[in-house]
């Protein structure tokens, strides 16, 4: 494909609750990616950071903060804020610069430090802000994930045990991942014994917040060949499409869906991977590994179907049959997913790409998927943000 770019290097800072400044994680990840790539810092001509917004103030000017920490060297800079898709948007900005021929090599980096406890809106009376409004009437983040989970139970007959299996699988897969925050195996009984948060989801069905960082060094295919890295894994697609009116599934932070009176209803989640497949010129049958957004255990099942990796309603059966494990027909979240990492918003879409890069290079150690050739990521953020990236070998 002509629209491809090469991934020369990847790096992460271990995720956890470290309580340090986000730039430390970003710099550690960036330096690891630089080292992995063999590219000199001065040769990087574009720095693309995933941004984070705290209390409505974009105080963390990610691209420039990390560029300064690595040492100003006059490169162009960019910061992208797109909630959980921030990393992918930063990557898309770098790809556009590279494909236009403006630069050969770019650093893409995302890092965050999360406050303690649940994420909550800023103070004050703000009835024009849908995020404030829904909290005012008692609708929190887990509400949305629980509505999707319960819908699966009502329509497909999924059970809470099916959801628990996702946690058990992801915990096992991330067990030896040195970058994962939680490295502990759990049983279905452990999940069932954890406190109910939003029925049918328990504490262990919902992911935590974390600090963390992830970075990539990407380049034109020409540049990769020039430095003897013509065999580098490539990015074949980056989809960041918005929903299409009339979006028919209730999305955080809205209290109502679009009305489908005048226009046929559409589904947002499935639009993201569909666009990625179209861009890459491949289909779901070609995929050997997927890193999808397990914000809740049940949501992983939704994503498996939205990525067209099985028929609608069959993801629980696929999981029960062990087909989504490492060694199964279509391994999902070999990294351990958000279940093992937790959320570090501007870093997580990049962390997914790091994992696919290691998998496609055959460098994933104990969690290696044999012969992995094509990987897909998927995630979704607030306010119509989301992304899906396809990595190929």
């Amino acid at each position, binding site marked *: 494909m002509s629209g491809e770019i090469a991934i020369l290097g990847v790096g992460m800072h271990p995720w956890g609750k470290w309580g340090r400044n986000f730039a430390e994680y970003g710099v550690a990840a960036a330096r690891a990616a630089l080292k992995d790539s063999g590219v000199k810092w001065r040769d990087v001509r574009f720095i693309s950071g995933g941004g984070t917004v705290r209390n409505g103030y974009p105080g963390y000017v990610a691209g420039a903060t990390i560029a300064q920490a690595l040492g100003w060297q006059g490169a162009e800079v960019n910061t992208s804020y797109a909630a959980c898709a921030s990393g992918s948007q930063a990557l898309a900005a770098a790809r556009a610069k590279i494909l236009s021929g403006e630069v050969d090599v770019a650093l893409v980096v995302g890092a965050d430090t999360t406050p303690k406890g649940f994420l909550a809106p800023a103070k004050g009376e703000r009835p024009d802000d849908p995020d404030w409004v829904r909290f005012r009437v*008692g609708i929190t983040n887990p509400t949305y994930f629980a509505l999707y989970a319960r*819908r699966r139970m009502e329509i497909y007959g999924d059970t809470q045990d099916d959801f628990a299996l996702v946690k058990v699988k992801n915990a096992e897969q991330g067990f030896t991942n040195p970058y994962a925050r939680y490295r502990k195996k759990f049983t279905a009984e452990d999940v069932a014994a954890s406190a109910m948060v939003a029925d049918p989801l328990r504490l262990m069905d919902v992911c935590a917040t974390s600090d963390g960082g992830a970075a990539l060094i990407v380049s034109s295919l020409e540049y990769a060949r020039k430095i003897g890295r013509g065999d580098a894994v490539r990015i074949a697609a980056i989809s960041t499409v918005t929903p299409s009116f009339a979006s028919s599934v*209730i999305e955080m932070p809205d209290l109502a869906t679009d009305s489908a009176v005048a226009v046929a209803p559409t589904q947002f989640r499935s639009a993201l991977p569909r666009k990625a497949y179209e861009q890459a010129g491949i289909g779901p049958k070609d995929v050997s590994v997927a890193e999808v957004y397990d914000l809740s255990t049940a949501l992983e099942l939704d994503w498996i179907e939205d990525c067209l990796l099985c028929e609608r309603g069959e993801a629980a059966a696929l999981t029960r049959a062990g087909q989504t494990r490492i060694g199964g027909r279509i391994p999902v979240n070999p990294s351990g997913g958000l279940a093992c990492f937790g959320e570090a918003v501007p870093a997580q879409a990049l962390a997914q790409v790091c994992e696919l890069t290691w998998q496609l290079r055959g460098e994933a150690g104990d969690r290696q998927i044999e012969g992995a050739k094509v990987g897909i990521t998927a995630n979704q953020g607030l306010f119509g943000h989301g992304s899906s990236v396809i990595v190929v070998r």
Partner: protein
Amino acid sequence: MSEGAAQATVPVLDGWFTTDSAAPHLIGSQCASCGTYYFPKLISGYCRNPDCDGETFESVELSRTGKVWSFTNACYKPPEPYIAADPFVPYAIAAVELEKEKMMVLGQVVEGVGIESLKAGMEMELVLETVPDATLPEGKLTWKWKPVEGAGA
């Protein structure tokens, strides 16, 4: 509410629903050109249907009954700006599909109705209930979903 306390009359969100407690309605708007409904009311003045140039909207009362799409509950007290009774009492939440408007609206389920009484497809109606407030001792009014008498899935 304690005996003799004033009845709540102030809505938790101004202009979002009628306060006629016998048969309350959510207040939305409807595009005069394409018929698309909005809740809450559209404030931009431009229809969100990408193929519609509509700039004229009528304030409308949405259907006060619909069918459950999905449901859950809140087992933990939400953070502010939610104001909860102390001690916190968990409540159920339902996403209800309105047939005429072809849209879904979220809301709490009335007090005393837990998730064990809910089922996808169940008929629900809109009612008003009082929720605690930081400044008004009698609380404020909010919309909630209530199973229609004798409703089954």
